């Protein structure tokens, strides 16, 4: 692009309000961070190593998966493959926000995507479907989620035994319920429902018959193909 006009301005007040909007869900992220911190020290990571991993990587599912491969030695390429496969959904999440992100200067565009994760992206994506442009939730919501993940990991490595079995409290379903609430809060036109049915079917086929951790990308792309061929009327 030859023109370098970036019309999107992140509003500090809105960044703050989105920070507090995701504060409730962040308490559950603390609990999950604790479970990660506990699992990490049990696998032999030092407390500060586990915390550093959460600070730098900030992608819970891939961190848990890495622990499964942790020993006195770690095979590098398989670890990279697993981390990439689990986190490849970020590629699609970032792409889906591009119509908004391109209106930010590149520094801010990539800066806020440092804290791009499932929950804040789900809010931004649903707001966008309803015509509201909300990149502030990526930044403000991302920060509160990142702080929660850090606090959770740090407390988990020291006090993790208080939370031996997060499943029994239903805590493993927090993100699932949150993402489902976001999906059902959006538009449910026939076009969207068909895309969802295709996405779910493709995801399950990939889950059963394709390499591990590929189902999210396969399902999402399949749903996208429906959207490519079946356009919303107002867009034509």
């Amino acid at each position, binding site marked *: 692009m030859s023109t370098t006009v970036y019309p999107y301005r992140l509003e500090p007040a809105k960044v703050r309000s989105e920070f507090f909007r995701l504060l409730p*869900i962040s308490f559950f992220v603390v609990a999950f961070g604790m479970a990660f911190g506990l699992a990490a020290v049990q696998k*032999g990571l030092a407390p500060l*190593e586990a915390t*550093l*991993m959460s600070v*730098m*990587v900030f992608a819970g599912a*891939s961190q848990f998966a*890495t622990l499964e491969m*942790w020993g*006195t*030695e*770690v095979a590098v390429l398989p670890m990279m493959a697993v*981390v990439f496969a689990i*986190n490849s*959904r*970020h*590629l*699609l*999440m*970032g*792409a*889906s926000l*591009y119509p908004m*992100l*391109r209106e930010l200067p590149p520094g801010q565009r990539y800066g806020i*995507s*440092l804290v791009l994760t499932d929950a804040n992206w789900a809010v931004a*994506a649903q707001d*966008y479907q309803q015509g509201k442009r909300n990149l502030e939730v990526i930044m403000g919501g991302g920060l509160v989620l990142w702080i929660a993940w850090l606090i959770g990991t740090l407390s988990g490595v020291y006090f993790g035994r208080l939370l031996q079995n997060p*499943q*029994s*409290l*239903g805590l*493993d*379903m927090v993100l*699932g*319920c*949150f*993402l*489902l*609430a*976001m*999906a059902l*809060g959006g538009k449910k036109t026939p076009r969207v429902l068909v895309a*969802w049915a*295709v*996405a*779910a079917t493709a995801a*399950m086929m990939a*889950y059963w018959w394709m390499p591990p951790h590929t189902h*999210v*990308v396969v399902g*999402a792309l*399949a*749903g*996208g193909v*429906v*959207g490519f061929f079946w356009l919303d009327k107002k867009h*034509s």
Partner: protein
Amino acid sequence: MTIETTVPGTLLLIAIMTIVTLITRFGGIFLMSFVTINPRVEGFINAMASSVLIAILAPMAVEGDIGARLALGTTAVLMLAFRKPLPAIAAGIIAAAAGRYFT
């Protein structure tokens, strides 16, 4: 190739994980800067966006335990009935805990 989990080795592994994850966070945005956004691309993107959620949730619902199914079912019903996310999520978590306690 393997890396020993000594302190420097662990730091190196964390650095590798960080870089791989950063590539996923930046990559989709970077690649989209080469794509012209027309109505078809926009149709693809917006259908893909909510399909990401469905693709994450499908195995939880299909292969999950009774707690996972109760949680998603409860959240779905309350969300469709009242359209209030927080109560729907809270009820879903309670349903998962209750389902697992009683089975």
